[in-house]
């Protein structure tokens, strides 16, 4: 659960206000989509990785995620390299043989575009992780309050987060109980069989969920929920670091936009 996870710490990113981090996140991603030249996008990626190191993001944890994304990533680069209407030929997948072929022309431009797509993907993954891993739930709720979202929304999210470990534990207890009745949960069967196998786990979860929500609702009204409009106590505040960080983000974003308008960062023949 990457979104909800928060790793406590005291790095620069932990000290920044959620709004500063949000601005940084937007700036980085806008810039990544502005440029097409992989060298430019690569520099942005490098800055995000640097930010990740500053924020002490455990990159090792991305290992599994990256493994899963490896095939799609290779596919993205390969596909772009193949179909992009570039001019400079890099090589052919099937070279010319006995008057046969050549087929599968890989162009330099195509390869670059593929690389850019790949970098953008990594920028999105890393920057969102830096953002969420350094921001506790309280800051998200404070932010919702600042943008005048209904207070119930924040409360609802907080309650949902509170019950995640409870539900996880319950799921394990149910699985154990059904296994004790001889259910083979891991055995892989057909699609329909798999669904059938999970019914004895999902049904008790749902029913217990209904029971749970009744107690929860009673506990809430008997503690005065709905008595009047209320405000969460915790609020977020900009500090000195933010007053330095925010202008820097803006300036870098503006420089990026200016360079792009001046025609930098596009692939040589792009639009030409």
């Amino acid at each position, binding site marked *: 659960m990457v979104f909800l996870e928060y790793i406590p710490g005291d790095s620069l990113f932990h000290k920044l206000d959620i709004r500063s981090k949000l601005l940084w996140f937007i700036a980085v991603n806008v810039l990544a989509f502005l440029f097409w030249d992989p060298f430019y996008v690569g520099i942005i990626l490098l800055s995000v990785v640097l930010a990740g190191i500053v924020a002490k993001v455990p990159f090792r944890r991305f290992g599994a995620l990256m493994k899963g994304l490896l095939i799609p990533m290779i596919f993205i680069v390969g596909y772009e390299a193949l179909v992009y209407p570039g001019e400079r030929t890099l090589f052919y997948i099937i070279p010319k043989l006995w008057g046969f072929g050549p087929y599968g022309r890989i162009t330099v431009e195509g390869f670059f575009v593929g690389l850019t797509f790949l970098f953008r993907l990594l920028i999105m993954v890393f920057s969102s992780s830096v953002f969420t891993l350094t921001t506790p739930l309280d800051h998200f709720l404070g932010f919702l309050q600042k943008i005048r979202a209904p207070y119930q929304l924040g409360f609802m999210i907080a309650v949902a987060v509170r019950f995640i470990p409870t539900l996880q534990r319950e799921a394990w207890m149910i699985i154990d109980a059904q*296994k*004790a009745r001889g259910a083979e949960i891991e055995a892989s069967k057909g699609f329909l069989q798999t669904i059938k196998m999970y019914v004895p786990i999902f049904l008790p979860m749902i029913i217990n969920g209904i029971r749970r929500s009744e107690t929860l609702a009673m*506990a809430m009204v008997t*503690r005065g929920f709905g008595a009047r409009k*209320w405000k969460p106590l915790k609020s977020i505040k900009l500090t000195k670091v933010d007053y330095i960080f925010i202008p820097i983000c803006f300036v870098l974003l503006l420089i990026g936009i200016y360079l792009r308008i001046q025609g930098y960062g596009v692939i040589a023949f792009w639009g030409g």
Partner: protein
Amino acid sequence: MPKITEPEVVIENLSYIYPKAEKPAIKNINLTIKKGEFVTIMGPTGAGKTTLCYAIVGLVPQFFEGGIMKGNVIVKGMSTRKYPIQKICTVAGIVFQDFENQIFGITVEDDVSYGPIFLGFDFEEVKKRVKKALSLVRLNGYEKRTVYTLSGGETQRLAIADILAMEPEIIVLDEPTSQLDPVGKEEVFQTLEDLRKKTDATIVLVEHKSEEVAKFSDRIIVMNDGEIVLEGPPRKIFENVDELLNIGVRPPQVCELFSSLRKKGMEFESFPITLEEAVDVLSKNLASLAKRKTVETRKHTSSSEMTEKVGSGEPIIEVRDLWHIYPGGVEALKGVGFNIYKGEFVAIIGPNGSGKSTLLKHFNGLLKPTKGEVIVDGLNVKDTTTGKLARKVGLVFQNPDHQLFAKSVKEEIEYGLKNIGLPEDEIEQRIKDAIEFTGLKGYEEKHPLLLKKDERQRVAFASIIAMAPEIIVVDEPTTGQDFKGSERMMQMLTKLNNLGKTIIVVTHDLRLVAEYANRVIALFQGKIIVDGSTREVFVNYFDALREAYLSPPQIIHLARMLAKYGVRQDILRVEEMVEEIIKLRGGK
């Protein structure tokens, strides 16, 4: 002159029918509760105790749409029909039995502050109230803890703090200890004691543990079938031992003892309801006896039952130097070893976190040993699937709602039988037998989820015994059950035991252990601290048990405290004590 105060709660002719229910959950209730009073409500499951609690805080009738309420409830001058729950909650708060789901904050501090925040108090006031409430339940220092990391007892104390932060004058607690282990129970009772001493709150408590109730209630109300059947101070109530047992309320063991002695024609100056009083009365009685004739010193430590081995002598479960370390490094079991013999009735006891559940899950392979071996009927669990072990070991979990899912009781029982691949006609027969055995005849086509809790528990039990395992393992069969339900469950286990099955029960109820089990294994911090016949364990390892937060039944305490008068020290049950006292008095 006593100060005349307005009654805090006035209930007049109250009856209530839940939406879609046929008969009333409570009827003709008349009750007045005074300021500062400590009132305890007792009664079997389904007596209407919870409904009465809900009525005091206004959940009945307001929370349930479509219910029919007759009569009135006035709380501090407010009718629960007219004032919203969110207004009543400022004078009357409620703590629910289900300790986990009433907590909705992420941290301890969050959770306690929600109440005052909802009521609209400012930052300073909320802080002040949170601090005060947490220190009253002794959770100061826990402010930043995530609620998920708290133990059961801590969670229930947090729930009490949640209510205290709203500063109500009346606190209603609906079975706050019934889902907790002995340590948690102790913590909650301690908190109640503190509240009584340090605040002038009026307390309404629903509780089964009569021995604790006798100590601090001003008044006891006994409910049965929706009505109040007995009402009065503890001494007056607990005198009616037979009537209470008949209703399904278990009085303190000392009351059972004195009631039996009275029936045998013995007279005492007063009727004791606590251990201390019983020791006092019996000391005087036996001391006067000792003057007349010197008590012959008797040997009693080597009674035949002490060393008796039950079971056939052929081990059915062998546990050898079992270690279990969870991912993350928690050492749940640290070198546990024992044999369980065919036909034994074993109780495994120990506080939460002592490794009981971890141990049980090794019996049917839900967990595999980190180190050591578990052999079940010749099969090493390390290389046997749970599916295969399920035919040998039937494991019944504590909460039936973690396994019921089918549309009918019959289908529910069928599930396990199909899983182990039995033929159609055999399945039919086994369902029939299991239904008969658990007394569920006539329930075959009913939906399990529409049944009462104790019936659901029996369905879950039936679904396991239908698989005809040689070994039946039951985790906390009596938690949240009333006295009759617990007795029924233990009797069913005894019956299976008599049929030659090996029974292993994990329970916190040491009174039931003393009455039913023939062997006790006590776990503490992942190790076995005591293993022996029930009598041997309770008598010879009394202090070791207490150090592991396991307090033996009241009657065993009593025997120890009367040792100097020559009372036999190997007493386990009330009847044995009755016999012993008669013997000492030179009666028939």
